């Protein structure tokens, strides 16, 4: 990706203008937090748009995100437990932070085509996108991370995902915004978050070894044959 002076100036100008509007309009945190999420998603997508990505890379991401999305639908009846987070983390670990983010954010949109789009969609896009990209970063920092490390990371994201999702409910619908109200909102979702974390751990224990082998094979194939598009 070529980062030109023009694009840097443009990004900074956009951030300053948006920031000024947000500060001057005296908004509540509910709308502000949503706007920050949209800006973050927009910047991620803009970076992806500017990069030269191969068609094979794009179609592999499409397949992985649709697997992650489909896997969410049959588990929708069990609150919290779903293999989506585990699949996105695995994608991030093998294919890198960018692939992890793209797979995570796309899986949220795709699964909500079936389960219904809502105010939760951008938050899910962000949360799963972050799960995927932080998994990619984890692999860069600890290249020899074992099953134990991945298991803990999956458990952690079960809670983190819920906490990110709760953030909007807390900022948009609760007043005053203090530690007491923060804990009350987070306590209300603790059971669901625990189900999510335990589900992630279970899926990781069952599928991690075989899934890693499959994904590693395709990652190597991707390195060998690439069709770059502009």
């Amino acid at each position, binding site marked *: 990706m070529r980062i030109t002076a023009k694009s840097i100036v443009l990004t900074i100008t956009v951030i300053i203008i948006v920031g000024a509007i947000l500060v001057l309009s005296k908004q509540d945190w509910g709308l502000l937090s949503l706007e920050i999420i949209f800006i973050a998603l927009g910047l991620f997508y803009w970076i992806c748009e500017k990069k030269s990505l191969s068609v094979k890379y794009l179609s592999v991401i499409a397949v992985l995100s*649709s697997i992650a999305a489909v896997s969410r639908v049959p588990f929708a009846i069990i609150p919290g437990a779903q293999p989506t987070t585990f699949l996105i983390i695995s994608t991030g670990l093998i294919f890198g932070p960018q692939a992890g983010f793209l797979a995570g954010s796309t899986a949220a949109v795709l699964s909500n085509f079936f389960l219904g789009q809502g105010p939760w969609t951008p938050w899910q896009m962000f949360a799963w996108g972050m799960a995927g990209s932080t998994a990619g970063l984890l692999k860069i920092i600890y290249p020899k991370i074992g099953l134990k490390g991945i298991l803990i990371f999956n458990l952690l994201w079960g809670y983190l995902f819920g906490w990110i999702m709760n953030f909007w409910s807390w900022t948009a619908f609760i007043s005053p915004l203090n530690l007491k109200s923060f*804990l009350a909102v987070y306590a209300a979702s603790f059971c669901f978050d625990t189900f999510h974390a335990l589900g992630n751990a279970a899926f990781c224990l069952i599928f991690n070894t*075989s899934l890693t082998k499959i994904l590693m094979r395709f990652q190597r194939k991707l390195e060998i044959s690439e069709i770059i598009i502009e």
Partner: protein
Amino acid sequence: MIKKGPDTCKGCYFRNMHPAAALVYYMSLFLVALLFSHPLYLTAILAVTILAIISARVLKFWKIYLKFSLFMTLMIVLINPLVSRAGSTVLWSGAQIPLLDGLIISLEAVYFGLAMGMRLLIVLSIFCLYNNTIHPDQTLYLFSKFTYKPALIISLGTRLIPRMKRDFENIQDLIKIRGFDYTSLGFKEKLALFRQSVNALIYNSLEGAWQIAEAMHSRAFGSGPRSQYGRWLLRPGDLICLAGSCAVIAVSFIGKAVGAGSYEYYPKMEYIFGGSRLLALILTGLLIPVLTSWGWDHCRFLRSRI
């Protein structure tokens, strides 16, 4: 007479709007609902949203959303009075609950909780409208103009989902043909067999991804700037709705910046009918698509013009 069934809203104006006009309208409703916590504003926006839902003929789907949102709304209505101690009209106090250091429930906090419950209801109703009137293809068409690679991934993913379902059924049939019977197996064996089926599905799907990429490449995908066409026309009615929605967004932000439409619940609730001039302006803009929809349904002349 309105046709009953899943496609009730097919011929309605909201389904025939340009996706950009519809999306900006829903966005204006959403922004106004989140910008103002004034109970009068929230009630008026809820009324406009319900009118839009009726005009779009998605009342049946809205009832499902109502049932679904009940738990979330209840949680918000209950948490607010429990955590707020700012209200001056105390209704009940006394119980010692961990983390809440002496429970005080005030009338103001109850009203605030109800207002926030109403805000959530508005937000969910807007998404009910969006889900039932804008097809995912239309959203993708809009976003592909700005971020076509993520839009491409989403459209490829959408196409792959039914194929995956079919592939998984084929794998299950193969397992049965090979003589494995799920009902006669123990939990461990069932789990192992399920894991193998899932692995086969993932492997097969990723192999399919290669074929898709090669097929796209052979059709010159990525060889140069891509062509694009849109099936949706921006008609006069769409332009009016778009202008109205943009005006609503601008007026709301300016109004909020100068302090119009602000409302204090604590320590004592303010007079409810203050700042209604801004509300009148906002409602005028928000009612344009509802009125246009009425014209589309009831007046042939208007329908031909919009």
